[in-house]
């Protein structure tokens, strides 16, 4: 059975703003256009990521309440593919949400400088870039590593507390670091290159011979 989550699609195509070379503190335009500011992308990314987080909380609620899983009870190895499948529903939201947040922040960072709402600061650029990249790298790295080794770890877990504790703690730490990391990195890079090239991002359904999916495709 193939999940039908890709029945609806969202397509966002956001063109970049004018590629001027602003001087720090000097607005290029007295009435800068909001189009291309990245705000819509930030909202979209935030909503998707937020819904993903809410979905994860709902899944945890299902495990605790309806499935009545007890932390001290033995972990059923049979459930490993089910956990992967179940959590994919909300990851489908977070997966496009996170890059949208990053790209939106990038465009917002450019916009703020170009619009004169922010005086470009090399120090801030460096700090946001370094902190953002560190957080994003840590979050994504933690997520990737913990998922890559999830099967042997879960198989070694004797209790639900061990298995679900491992999955949920690493998930939330990953999300809590990756989201601000993506935003900070985007802001830093946007501020660093306010006249950067146009960016596009598209979310759409994906159909391959044996399944359906959701794809985020873009030039960032």
């Amino acid at each position, binding site marked *: *059975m*193939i*999940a039908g*989550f890709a029945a609806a699609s969202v397509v966002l195509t956001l063109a970049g703003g004018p590629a001027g070379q602003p001087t720090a503190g000097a607005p290029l335009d007295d009435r800068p256009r909001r189009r291309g500011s990245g705000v819509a992308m930030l909202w979209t990314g935030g909503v998707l990521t937020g819904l993903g987080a809410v979905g994860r909380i709902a899944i945890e609620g*299902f*495990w605790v309440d*309806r*499935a*009545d*899983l007890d932390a001290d*009870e*033995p972990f*059923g*190895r*049979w*459930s490993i*593919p*089910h956990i992967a*499948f*179940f959590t*994919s*529903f909300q*990851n*489908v939201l977070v*997966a*496009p949400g996170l*890059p949208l947040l990053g790209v939106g922040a990038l465009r917002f960072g450019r916009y703020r400088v170009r619009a004169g709402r922010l005086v470009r600061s090399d120090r801030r650029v460096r700090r946001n870039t370094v902190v953002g990249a560190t957080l994003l790298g840590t979050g994504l790295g933690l997520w990737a590593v913990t998922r890559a080794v999830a099967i042997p770890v879960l198989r070694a877990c004797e209790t639900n507390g061990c298995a679900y504790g491992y999955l949920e703690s690493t998930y939330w730490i990953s999300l809590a670091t990756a989201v601000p990391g993506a935003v900070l990195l985007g802001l830093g890079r946007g501020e660093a290159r306010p006249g950067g090239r146009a960016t596009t991002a598209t979310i759409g359904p*994906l159909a*391959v011979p*044996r*399944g*359906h*999916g*959701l*794809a*985020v*495709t*873009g*030039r*960032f």
Partner: protein
Amino acid sequence: MRRSSLLALLVAGCAPNVPASLGEEPEDRVALRDAPQLEHLATALDVDAGHTVEDMLRAWASPHAAPDPSAWFDARESAHAGLEPLAGGTPLRVLTYNVGLLDRWYPFFVVKSPHVDERREHAADEILAGGWDLILLQEVWEWADVERFEDAAAEHGYRIHAGTRDVHEHHGLVTLVREGLVEDGTSDHDEVTFEIQRAVEDFPGPAIERAYLTWSFVLAGTDVELHLLNVHATAFPEFPRIRAFQARELGLAARDAPDDAIVLVGGDLNAGPYYRDDAFGEIDGETVSGWWRNAIAHPLLQYYGDLDDMVVLAGQAQDVTLPGALPPFDGDDYRKEAFGDSSLCELLGGTFTATDCNSLYFEQYAGTEFPHRIDHLMVRDPMQRLRVLETALAFEERLDFGGYGWFELSDHYGVSATIEIE
């Protein structure tokens, strides 16, 4: 242009719906009317003399009348009753019991038998204290429950075989043999997942794959090689063809044992020998139909495995006669109480292992299923070294679970047999 793609891709495999070997076994090519176990199916299907078992399984037509195995049952009962009594045989008590310890989640759903938390605490001790020599259990899904049975087995003096943990959690089967019955060094175990499955039951469903456990050993103090096969076939009346293929596979496995061995097959086949009505029961206002096709797996297992139903051999099969007392189906009445009149449970008792008379069964399936004998003990004994002395239902009574109330140990009744082996 640089492109980045994040993909979420979900793929499910496709399971076969017909066994790869169908048509290759000699038993597949026998005409239904030439197989005494299946003759009544030929009559009910109204097929010509050349219609083979393979033809039946491929065409999978619906019977035109209730397949009635009475003639076959009578013949086997008489043949068994005519056997010479054994002199100095080894008496054994055998039990098959679906303990109904189902407690699983899968995305957006939970499947949980009533009172499972209370029942699982008592099941192992209750069953192992019963004095049975050979015990075949189904629906011991969770490894934690297997560990409860392992602890009880050590205490009560049993050997236990539940398969490997990873596979066990999908089939839920446990076999126990009383210590001292196994000749040292002769024990051999295996677990086999059926080729034909209802794939959705495993994923994304509750991780169930239908299978059978095998355990062969020499019965201590004798030269008899005993082969135990413990099975749980696919559930629900909508899937009789899957069950038929599983019965074929299990039967062929039973037939694989040497002719001088005794094969005991026990378990929940999820199919009975007889259904009076083809349409019986309601689910969400829809009539449940197709019961007559559910009468195919039971004779098919006997045919492929050269097996006999112990209840039949003991002369205690009432599958055909008892439903005569069953009132015509009325959804409202049947949902209110067992058969619309629970006093009928006395009259209809003693045969059906899955019935609304069981309070746990009623809670889950009231008015949705024809009462049926779906838990079976069967024997293959070409050398006629085994006698079935009697059979009976087990664990019919409701137990006191303290503050949780009185209810049965499982949503099925067990089937026990007292046998004697030369």
